[in-house]
């Protein structure tokens, strides 16, 4: 199904055409096999890098594309429509670059950003810990300054690209202060003392590696601290706004893929002498799915436009994440229903979409946490909490 997109420029329209073409040729044909085999498509990210997608939002002076959120979020949607592992992976990479690009000094940006967004390297974002998930501020990984270096010790969990990334943006505790005790670090993937647990065996997104990381006295030069000591939680929360918006776009792409599959099947499957889409029970289901996908897209694009004005989008991003991922869950569930038995077997992609949608209701803050954020925002509470 053709998706009409509103884009702010001719070059953005042309870029989306390239992305859709690349997704159709390079992602679609291999997504099912690689997901079944749990194979991470690292070379696909190199290709995205060559096209310039790994630095799309970031400043041109560091080699980025300087594109607004309304453009790169739609790139994420288009990639996720073909293969969520790739769309989500790009979202995570862009999230990992965000703290340095936004809070780094000119010197730090000149030193690291061109390589991070240049297309050859891939990033990961490491905030969660075994005992600090929704309550991220409870994290216990420590970074102690020994007078010359920071030394990182502790354990992180659920890191997308863990073991495959070239750099990790890591939040660690530099003091016990609950609000101002966390700092942000840029850790090279080949740092001594960095160890990765075997990838998790997940319900879906099996081609996207998720791993725990242990920091066994990892030595970091002080220049690798992004922002001031104690500023880490503020950085992490700002980054989460961006990450949540990205997940919203990815979820919309996944929902669109499920809708596409359901529409196609309902037009080909005959029962009682009719194509099943001609039965109102099926037609209404498809109509509700189409309405939900369009609403999800409108919601994340509204948040993207808000982000492009430069204002803080904590509430908008939480709403978009909640709406789009719940939509993806509902639409993928109904896609399985429309395909019936065919939807429950691996010959069709919808059972995979259904499994993948579940992850999106959990990552970057569960949808319950999104509600907490929204509730606090509408109550006028301090924007800096969660």
């Amino acid at each position, binding site marked *: 199904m053709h998706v009409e997109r509103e884009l702010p420029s001719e070059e953005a329209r*042309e870029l989306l055409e390239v992305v859709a073409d690349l997704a159709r040729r390079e992602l679609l044909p291999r997504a099912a096999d690689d997901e079944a085999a749990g194979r991470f498509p690292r070379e696909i990210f190199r290709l995205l890098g060559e*096209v*310039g*997608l790994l630095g799309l939002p970031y400043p041109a002076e560091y080699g980025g594309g300087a594109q607004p959120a309304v453009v790169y979020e739609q790139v994420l949607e288009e990639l996720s429509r073909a293969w969520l592992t790739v769309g989500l992976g790009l979202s995570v990479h862009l999230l990992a670059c965000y703290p340095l690009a936004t809070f780094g000094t000119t010197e730090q940006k000149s030193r690291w950003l061109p390589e991070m967004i240049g297309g050859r390297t891939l990033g990961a974002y490491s905030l969660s810990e075994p005992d600090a998930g929704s309550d991220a501020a409870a994290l216990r990984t420590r970074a102690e300054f020994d007078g010359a270096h920071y030394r990182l010790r502790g354990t992180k969990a659920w890191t997308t690209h863990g073991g495959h990334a070239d750099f990790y943006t890591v939040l660690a505790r530099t003091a016990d202060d609950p609000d101002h005790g966390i700092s942000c670090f840029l850790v090279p993937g080949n740092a001594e003392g960095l160890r990765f647990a075997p990838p998790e065996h997940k319900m879906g997104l099996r081609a996207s590696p998720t791993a725990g990381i242990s920091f066994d006295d990892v030595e970091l030069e002080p220049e690798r601290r992004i922002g001031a000591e104690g500023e880490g939680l503020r950085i992490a929360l700002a980054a989460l706004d961006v990450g949540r918006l990205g997940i919203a776009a990815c979820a919309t792409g996944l929902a669109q893929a499920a809708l596409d599959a359901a529409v196609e099947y309902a037009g080909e499957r005959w029962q009682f002498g009719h194509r099943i889409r001609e039965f109102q029970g099926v037609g209404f289901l498809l109509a509700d799915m189409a309405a939900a996908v369009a609403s999800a897209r409108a919601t994340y694009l509204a948040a993207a436009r808000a982000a492009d004005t430069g204002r803080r989008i904590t509430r908008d991003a939480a709403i978009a994440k909640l709406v789009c991922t719940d939509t993806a869950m509902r639409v993928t569930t109904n896609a399985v229903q429309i395909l019936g038995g065919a939807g429950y077997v691996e010959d069709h992609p919808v059972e995979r979409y259904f499994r993948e949608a579940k992850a999106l209701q959990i990552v970057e803050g569960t949808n319950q946490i999104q509600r907490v954020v929204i509730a606090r925002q509408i109550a006028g509470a301090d924007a800096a909490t969660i």
Partner: protein
Amino acid sequence: MRVVVLVKQVPDTWSPKRLRPGDFLLDRAAADGVVNELDTYAVEEALRIKEKHDDTTVIALTMGPPPAVEVVRKALQMGADEGVHVVDDALAGSDAMVSSLVLAAAIERIGFDLVITGVESTDARMGVLPAMLAERLGAAQATLAAEVKVDGREISVRRLAGGREFDVVAPLPAVVSVVEKINEPRYPSFKGIMAAKSKPLTTLSAADLGLDSNRVGLAGSATEVVAAEERSAERARVVIHDEGDAAARIVEFLASRKLL
């Protein structure tokens, strides 16, 4: 070195194609126009030659109605330096002979050492244009190239024809058509998309090329489609009822259409 690479806009392979009633010309408005995929290999090869040889200019050339400029733009986005679009209402309906006349005139005007084309276009599928161009330009021709090396004033080509390989060497100027096997075309990058905006793109008419309107288009063409009939979807359908040998018959059917 000046490398002219030919690109053509064709109807999207996935959209239904139709001939116009009356003149039986391809109804280009009925389907989405896309770049002839085989031409993207030609563009890629031209860019690889440019990357290996300093002072090389790659010029993407097309002939076609106004929307065809899109395929020149795509070549510029991939990395070609300049674009030329030959566009003129008088050119509508040009057959291969006339197309080669017009394109040869454009190529001469552009100036060239090497012309690279795809092996054929996915709409007409004649594959004769490269040879016609070489003849009109008085240049050497090496068609069906699976490998191209340019060395000084000479070109070495590995031809892939009839399932066999032939190595040929020719002096420049030359016309080369390339097969899909030759490379993996790049995707335009975002930087390429931005850079393409400021690259020179020239539009030429038949008159600019010194061609009278009676020598081009339908008027100048030696061939003409005089009749066409729509293929019925019903007749295209073959139903195989299983009488114990359905699998074998399906294989036979697919093989007869060269799908196996």
